């Protein structure tokens, strides 16, 4: 992935301070860095790469090749894997003749059972509900973009989607599974079920879906269609 530095910025002088009209500012041509607020002119967009703020180095815009098709494809794959991950056996513990089988939601159920309602809700939201919502919202935004029809308030929906990003924590749960397996390794045999494999793939697929989104393109397309 190539990095392009925004090579041009607006000089602050008497002219710009007195007569800087909105007509000279266009979202396709200028952008303010979200980390340092520097207004800069955008260089020609690379096909696939990132444009980086000249002053603080944060990524201003990430462009992706075939962004809409790729995001849709990954999201649909994710939906299939998700349905497998929640419905099939997750992990089983075998100790002597006793076998305990669990599903993805067993942990949350146990925590609810122990009265840890807030804790159970946090785990449920971050590892089960928000990832599903993310994929549903992606379908809601990208299907109309691909097949060119209009849906109700797609722009606010995409805004909400952005806010969900840090709260989707399936990859951390995956690491948690590895730690738990090592921890129990001495006292019992852990048998991974079909759902764990689906879950592991889902982590990768969802990461691919999210990284193939071209935010700038989506905002532009959605605005045009409104």
């Amino acid at each position, binding site marked *: 992935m190539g990095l392009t530095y925004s090579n041009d910025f607006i000089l*602050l002088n008497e002219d710009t301070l007195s007569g800087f009209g909105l007509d000279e500012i266009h979202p396709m041509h200028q952008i303010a860095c979200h980390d*340092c607020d520097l*207004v800069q002119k955008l260089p020609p967009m690379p096909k696939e790469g990132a444009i980086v703020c000249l002053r603080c180095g944060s990524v201003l815009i990430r462009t992706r090749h075939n962004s809409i098709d790729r995001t849709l494809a990954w999201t649909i794959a994710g939906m299939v894997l998700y349905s497998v991950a929640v419905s099939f056996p997750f992990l089983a513990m075998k100790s002597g003749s006793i076998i*305990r089988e669990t599903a993805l939601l067993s942990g949350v159920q146990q925590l609810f059972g*122990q009265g840890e309602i807030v804790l159970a809700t946090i785990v449920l939201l971050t590892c089960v509900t928000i990832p599903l919502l993310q994929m549903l919202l992606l379908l809601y935004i990208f299907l109309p973009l691909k097949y060119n029809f209009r849906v109700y308030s797609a722009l606010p929906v995409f805004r909400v989607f952005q806010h969900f990003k840090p709260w989707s924590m399936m990859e*951390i749960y995956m690491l*948690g*599974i590895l730690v*738990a397996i090592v921890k129990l390794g001495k006292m019992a045999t852990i048998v991974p079920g079909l759902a764990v494999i689906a879950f592991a793939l889902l982590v990768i697929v969802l990461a691919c879906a999210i990284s193939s989104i071209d935010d700038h393109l989506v905002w532009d397309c959605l605005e045009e269609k409104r």
Partner: protein
Amino acid sequence: MKAEDPRYASARRLGLVACSDCHLLSRKIVLGSGQVAVCPRCGGELHQRKPNSIHKTWALLLAAIICYIPANVLPMTITSALGNVEADTIISGVIYFIHSGSWEIALVIFTASIFVPFMKFLILIYLLLSVQFRSKWRPRDRTVLYRITEAVGRWSMLDVYVVTILVALVKLGVLADIEAGPAVIYFASVVVFTMLAAESFDPRLIWDVVEDNE
């Protein structure tokens, strides 16, 4: 262009507001009391800087630091095996892994559960103080520091998930049983509060100080 170049123009200096969600630039308008400016493109609220950023970040950070104490002192898991009941804290879990030979896992847990939250406290306190005392020192490096804290904080959730999985798996009646200890909810709170604190800090304040000093 040097960071200190006096000719650069921030959106604030040009009288513009960048939407925090869709990055559209709008002209700043004067608002009456009780009014909010809304982004014409995505409908999000427009603020030149995150409102009450410093106070909010301090409040959430203090809440996280307070929760960090019971999270480390109280037990994370309560294991009962064949009549023996054992309470494990985060640190005793790390020590267990070192003794049982899996030092890699011990390192992962130590990093995610002890080191990362602690560093996040220190970095956020430093960033807040550097803005409040109007420091001009290395704004670019401080911005990078902020971005790292923002990205890395979620990984502290690891121990909460390990407990969730253990609680689900180890249910063998009298033979072995694991229950979540009282520390888990405090620990989850530390992670949530530090994530919210990082989200409410506005890195553009670092650059405002540099600009204003010129």
